[in-house]
């Protein structure tokens, strides 16, 4: 008996210790987070394919200042279609004492938008917590009419360093309304049951751990757990169609453009006068692009069905303004006049992949034009920026899945990605240090593809600004005199050419009897990656590119090489680094090449990638030391 009691005590003791350890662990875990979503409930009640209400309840404990924005409330509504039916909010301190009760009347309404014309507006409330932790609870209902393209889904993690205790989801639809759903990064079960002529879908997630931000991680939306719901038959301002396939969604989009591509007679005449029909098709398309560039510019208009239906080509041509859909539709009409068929194409500019087996509206945000079979290849035309060279796949297109909208319906395809060679930055560098340590530097660069894209604005700015930008971009020391500065785009090619001839006093550093010269004056910013303990997330590199330099450093009279940079060759899963160094009489010749490729790698590959990046950094930071003889 006594023994049993002891044993019991021991068990109780062990349980207590275990509980304390668990509590301590929970406490530490919770302290490691910036906020905890205690409860996240969504109830979608759909009464027909034109109307639904969404009730939301969210309770958050904010642990520190970094998550203080989570105390704010903000939602986007739309004049005439989405309204806020009720709202309440409560903010309490750590003792549960209510600090603030927020009513609907306390919300601020703002129509501020980056779009030129839209029906959207936001309602918001901003609260700055004075101490932590605080507890915030918001309850509100949004009512939708006229359109139903998708249902609110469940994606309770709002961002990094926030965990979730419990999230519940309920979708109620009339019997007969088919619902499609898609799970991402979760195996949460979705239950379906029928009740009183309605079908109810439910899902529940609990104890979702916070995700910690890590370098080279995929986009948060690609790693967060979520379930997307949508009606099989959607309704968009009275226009209905099926989301059963990308084919049907594409067909609906094609129909929206029908009858809107006719161009005005004046434009038809201009095309006839300026475009040589006997020229190859690609040339005709390029000329049409130039015409589009001269006569239009982009402004964003998203009103009603105009969120998906393009403005009539005639109106766009008359105003000289339009959004991506309108400009695409106009270009489509212009090509039609030239007898060239083309198809409006939708895609997402920053997310490369569409969910192949789950067509939905939210996966795309942009429209371009596809012209098939031009010189055995397909041309993708960015009508929003017709100044881009024809056929160039910019970073928002290269490697992206797209949906072609054709009379036969939507067709999924993928735009070819750019290769490292396509995105090459090649530089020929000549460094001529003088005995007084002043240096004449000449850099001729050809910057191609996506590297060109991020720098092409350089060719359009004033020379003083160009100078400033190039001084920041290249490592030239203190430039006393710019002998030559030339920045221009190659005609019809995604290539920026920069030519810099400068006399610098700070490039070669005098150090007593020595002169120290940085090896690479072109890429000074090959940065390193921080250490990450216990890396959790996959490693993602997103761009293929190559930086290649041929550098010649002349050894000035009276000097000899004391220390040469080291040659290196290194290959890793994400690229290749090569640096060769050779002295040829009075010249030191250095060839550098860094080739990086886009990959999705497991988290365990991070140290290798980190080391590769560090080696590039070290190689590019090497110096040539010359000594007086």
């Amino acid at each position, binding site marked *: 008996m006594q023994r049993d009691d002891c044993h019991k005590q021991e068990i109780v003791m062990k349980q207590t210790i275990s509980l304390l350890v668990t509590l301590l662990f929970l406490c530490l875990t919770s302290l490691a987070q910036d906020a905890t979503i205690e409860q996240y409930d969504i109830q979608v009640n759909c009464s027909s394919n034109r109307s639904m209400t969404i009730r939301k309840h969210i309770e958050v404990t904010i642990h520190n200042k970094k998550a203080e924005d989570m105390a704010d409330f903000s939602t986007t509504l739309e004049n005439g279609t989405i309204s806020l039916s009720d709202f309440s909010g409560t903010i309490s301190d750590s003792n549960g004492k209510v600090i603030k009760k927020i009513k609907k009347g306390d919300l601020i309404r703002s129509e501020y938008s980056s779009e030129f014309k839209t029906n959207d507006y936001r309602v918001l409330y901003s609260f700055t917590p*004075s101490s932590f932790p605080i507890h915030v609870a918001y309850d509100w209902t949004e009512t939708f009419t006229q359109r139903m393209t998708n249902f609110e889904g469940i994606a309770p993690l709002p961002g990094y360093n926030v965990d979730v205790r419990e999230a519940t989801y309920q979708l109620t639809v009339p019997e007969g309304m088919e619902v499609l759903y898609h799970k991402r990064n979760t195996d949460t079960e979705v239950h379906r049951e029928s009740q009183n002529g309605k079908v109810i879908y439910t899902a529940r997630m609990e104890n979702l751990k916070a995700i910690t931000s890590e370098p080279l991680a995929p986009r948060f939306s690609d790693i967060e757990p979520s379930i997307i719901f949508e009606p099989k038959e959607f309704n968009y301002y009275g226009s209905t169609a099926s989301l059963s396939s990308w084919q049907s969604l594409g067909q609906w989009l094609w129909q929206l453009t029908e009858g809107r591509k006719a161009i005005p007679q004046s434009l038809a005449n201009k095309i006839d006068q300026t475009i040589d029909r006997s020229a190859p098709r690609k040339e005709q398309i390029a000329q049409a692009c130039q015409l589009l560039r001269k006569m239009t510019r982009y402004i964003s208009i998203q009103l009603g069905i105009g969120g998906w239906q393009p403005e009539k080509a005639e109106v766009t041509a008359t105003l000289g303004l339009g959004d991506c859909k309108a400009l695409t539709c106009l270009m489509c009409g212009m090509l039609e006049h030239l007898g060239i068929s083309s198809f409006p194409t939708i895609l997402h500019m920053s997310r490369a992949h569409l969910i192949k087996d789950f067509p939905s509206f939210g996966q795309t945000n942009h429209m371009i034009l596809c012209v098939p079979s031009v010189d055995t290849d397909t041309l993708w035309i960015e009508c929003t920026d017709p100044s881009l060279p024809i056929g160039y796949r910019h970073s928002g297109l290269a490697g992206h899945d797209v949906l072609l909208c054709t009379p036969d319906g939507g067709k999924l395809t993928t735009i070819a990605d750019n290769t490292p060679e396509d995105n090459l930055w090649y530089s020929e560098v000549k460094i001529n240090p003088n005995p007084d340590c002043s240096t004449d530097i000449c850099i001729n660069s050809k910057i191609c593809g996506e590297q060109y894209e991020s720098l092409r604005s350089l060719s359009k700015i004033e020379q003083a600004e160009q100078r400033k930008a190039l001084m920041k971009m290249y490592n030239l020391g*203190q430039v006393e005199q710019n002998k030559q500065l030339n920045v221009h785009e190659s005609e019809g090619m995604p290539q920026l050419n920069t030519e810099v001839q400068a006399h610098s006093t700070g490039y070669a*550093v005098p*150090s007593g009897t020595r002169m120290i010269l940085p090896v690479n004056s072109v890429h000074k910013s090959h940065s390193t990656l*921080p250490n990450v303990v216990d890396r959790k997330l996959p490693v993602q590199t997103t761009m293929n590119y190559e930086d290649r330099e041929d550098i010649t450093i002349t050894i000035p009279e009276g000097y000899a090489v004391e*220390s040469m940079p080291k040659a290196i060759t290194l290959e890793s899963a994400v690229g290749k680094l090569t640096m060769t160094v050779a002295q040829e009489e009075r010249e030191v010749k250095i060839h550098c090449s860094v080739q990086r490729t886009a990959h999705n790698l497991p988290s365990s590959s991070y140290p290798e990638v980190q080391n590769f990046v560090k080696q590039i950094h070290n190689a590019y930071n090497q110096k040539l030391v010359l000594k007086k003889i």
Partner: protein
Amino acid sequence: MKRRFFSISKIISAACLLTICVTANAQAPNTKMGSPTIEELSMTSYSQDPEAKAVILWEDSEVAMERHGQSMKIGMTFKRRAKILAEEGMDVADVTIRLRNNEGAIGRHDELGSLKANAFNLVNGKIEKTTMTNATISKQRLTPHVTQTHFVIPQAKAGSIIEYQYKLYIDDFTDIPTWYAQCKYPVLLSTFEVRLPDWFVFAFQQSGSTPCQHTQDFTNSTQFNTVETKDNFRWENIPALPKDNEYLYCPSDFADKVTCEMKSVNIPGVIARTYSLEQVDVNKQLLDNPNFGGRLRQKNPLHKEMEEAGIAKIENVMDRAKATIELLKKKVRWNGGYSLTGTSLPKVLKEGTGDNADLNFLLMSMLRDVNVKCHPAVMSLRSRGRLPLTHSSLESLNTFCVTIFENENTYHFYDSSAEDGYFDVLPSNMNVERCIILYDKPGDWDNACPQKKLKYTRMSSITAQLSAEGLLSGECTTNYYNNAVLSYRNAWNAKNDSTAFVASLAESKEMTINDFHLTGANEFSSTLSEQFTFEKQLDGDDRFYLNPLIVNDFKTNSFTAEKSTMPVEFPYITSRMYNILITLPEGYQVEEAIAPLSVSLPEKAMSAQLIVNAREDAVEINCRFNVNRIFYAPEEYEGIKKLYNLLSSKCNEMIVISKK
């Protein structure tokens, strides 16, 4: 032959073009709306600024007082004609007008009317006009108090002349908007006219470097049955506002402009009122304002808690003030905003948040309750422009900080927006040249200069050992003082976590950082100490090359522009010091040290020194950098650039260490 002909024809057309450009500039600017000339449409560049992407041909504003029923409004007719010279200049055809416009019947209601816009293009030698319709006008309510009209002129393209005009009715007759004659594009002609019945007296203040012709006329006003004063301002050939203004807090301070501030209004039998003329008038208006003077008179809503905490019993004044601030910080937090007036103190306390004025009023009520003398120091934030030199101005004031008096002669600045600050630690935006300490009576005030009092100081001490393998390892301790502490704490708090902070520190210093300790990161104090151990592999095999400052500071010169036409402003008076001692490995010596650097601007406005002392077994490096003045005129830019260049070159030099 053909080629030659082609070249000659090109030269001829270039000459014609040049003539056109010159003619366009030599003639009086065209101020006729709706009548662009062929010369204007043919213009391809602006001879005085060949790289300009657009040029404003004429910009005009006519301001007049207008009667609207029982009330008066300011009517402002605005006209602009512009030439688009390149695609990058198309933004002149994309216009946003913000209005102060309250929701509901109460409050200010500015109105926009008579909006017209046209684009003119030369098509086959003929002028084609496109008129803007409602299709390209968008109206939005941004906040309960502000609306926005955004319009885009159709058919505007490179080569177009665009014109637009509108009339703005301003629902506050004291508020004539500042006229900015200078903008990002060059302006051929800018005209500004203000017509007012002599009941209204405004102070006009001009700034900028382009000559402005100011004339004044008097006529009889039939509308008001009194004398009308007409002030005309005219600028010609205004250059584009320089872009090299990244070291300025408020570039528009130096732009060509006219500010208008009401001095007095005297409408017989209706109203007679004097506005901001002298500082004493400004002070009176502030002290009479319930949201300023009224707030200063409010009782301490935290009296009980302060009593319980025994703050009043703390003997030392500054300790009492410190305890008060620490209590305040537990109760309320700054919401990111700045203002001059505040809301009720119990409300601020209940909300737990407020702008700097709300929190400062609350703090002052608390300080006074425990017999700490304190007064507001009113100012204009550096980013909002300087206080006028010629007159005192209520309109120019936009915030205040608190002066806390240690004794009758010594006071310290404090502001609630410096969440991680201390006494005499203010955000650099508040480090103004002049503010006004406002005592209890309008006639009782003092000028004060935070820029003389606020200091940024940091001192680094590094001891390191170099191994025979070229590994440099050691310890770096940096002590931060006063405003350097605020900058450091802001950077620390901006990073997600300490790991991210240390990672970015290691990257910037190009070294591996191991043990990292911070003392005073979260304290209410004027000091902070950062300590870390580091490792760095030096270049070289049997000979090592070492930068003198190790930690990579001063290695780049941010003053790269060839010249500057704008002044340079620094955040604070600054002092940075480095004392470095590196022990050499056995059998090694300093083969080559670095020549000393000592450079300064006239009157020691800025100075830098670096001395390397090679010893038998070690190398000692001392470096000092001081910014002793905050404002530098454009002609001093060259000197600043040179000093930074010399310092950065010196810090890039290498000490050579080799075997004996």
